[in-house]
């Protein structure tokens, strides 16, 4: 097991025994900005070296993949998990989108095994932030109907889309990618002690915090019911397999395919909840977070990531 996962478990245990351990919000926001920049910079530096035009097609394919995940999740959530239209649209957006921390844990696990995924994976991370949310918002638009004067103003769906595009994750990831690519490894060496050497330590602190939050959401997770819990495990595994297949189609290494699978399997618990709260006010926000963070994130970090690596090595060349 990777040490960072132990910090996640420590966070869960601390909250389980109702310890008064709280991490300041400013620390959480700082770690988020740090992780996004560190991942972006690292990807950009590598990307500068081997940018190929075929990446453009892959970029579009990956965005379609994110949108498809949300589109497929929506009917499953309605029929199998028996969620109402609003809740189904909201949760679908969570699963169409991605989680940066899951990506970081997956990337870290691969590196501990001495393999490095292709740099374009960081680009794919940034590109998969929004499409799933966009589909969720479009579905929400259909539910509330055009003339029903969606409570948050007529252009609520375009507002949510624009809001997602302006989200700090997309801005920092693409910004980091650009700076990394423009300056390259050598010129950015002086900021490596901050943005590379401290990466795993920051990830460990981040997972301690997420463990506290997950354990704090336990009541919501229980109320979400076993159907949503089952979906929170089964859907990510299926999505991972689809992602690995897509990775192989791109000609990625086993490490690259595994990480694309992990991206598909990851669900957003920051960008999607904020966007859907605005686009689908009727949806119960606790459902999406309970599933995406309480069930899927914990599953991916503890079981999924090693599993997707084994599937990728089996399927891959």
């Amino acid at each position: 097991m990777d040490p960072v996962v132990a910090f996640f478990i420590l966070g869960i245990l601390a909250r389980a025994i109702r310890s008064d351990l709280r991490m300041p919000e400013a620390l959480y926001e700082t770690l988020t900005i740090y992780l996004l920049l560190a991942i972006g910079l690292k990807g950009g530096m590598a990307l500068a070296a081997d940018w190929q035009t075929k990446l453009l097609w892959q970029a579009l394919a990956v965005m379609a993949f994110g949108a498809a995940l949300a589109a497929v999740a929506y009917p499953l959530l309605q029929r199998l998990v028996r969620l109402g239209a609003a809740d189904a649209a909201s949760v679908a957006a969570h699963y169409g989108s991605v989680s940066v921390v899951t990506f970081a844990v997956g990337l870290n696990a691969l590196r501990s095994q001495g393999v490095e995924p292709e740099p374009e994976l960081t680009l794919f991370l940034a590109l998969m932030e929004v499409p799933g949310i966009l589909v969720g918002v479009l579905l929400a638009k259909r539910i509330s109907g055009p003339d029903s004067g969606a409570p948050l103003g007529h252009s609520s769906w375009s507002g949510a889309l624009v809001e997602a595009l302006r989200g700090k994750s997309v801005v920092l990831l693409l910004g980091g990618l650009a700076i990394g690519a423009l300056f390259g490894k050598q010129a950015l060496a002086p900021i490596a002690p901050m943005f590379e050497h401290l990466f795993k330590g920051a990830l460990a602190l981040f997972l301690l915090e997420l463990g506290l939050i997950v354990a704090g959401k336990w009541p919501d997770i229980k109320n979400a019911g076993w159907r949503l819990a089952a979906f929170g495990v089964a859907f990510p595994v299926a999505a991972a397999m689809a992602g690995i297949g897509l990775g192989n189609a791109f000609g990625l290494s086993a490490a690259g395919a595994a990480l694309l699978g992990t991206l598909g399997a990851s669900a957003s618990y920051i960008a999607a909840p904020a966007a859907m709260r605005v686009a689908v006010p009727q949806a119960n926000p606790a459902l999406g977070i309970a599933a995406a963070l309480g069930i899927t994130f914990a599953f991916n970090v503890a079981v999924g990531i090693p599993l997707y690596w084994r599937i990728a090595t089996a399927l891959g060349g």
Partner: protein
Amino acid sequence: MTLNTYPKRQLTIIAEAVLESRLIEHTRHYGAHGYTTSEVRGGGEHGVKEGAWDVDRMIEFKVVADEAVIEALASHVLEQYAANFALSMFLSDVQVLRPQKF
């Protein structure tokens, strides 16, 4: 020498932080000249909001204006958000020294 004071109404809205920008829009739309926001935590019908998670963050939003403005704003916010968001509102009397400012 008693100070001349002028009656106004204060609207206090405790709501999910995600609504702040919309509340500011409505406040301007109904003609109030200003607003004041502070970060709070609390508990009510929609459960405990510790603000530990972005979507759980709550704000206390205060507007001081004439009765008509405050009542219009309050009923609009009630009708628009009360059904779907954690939100509580209460009105109270205040007195100001510079009536034209509010």
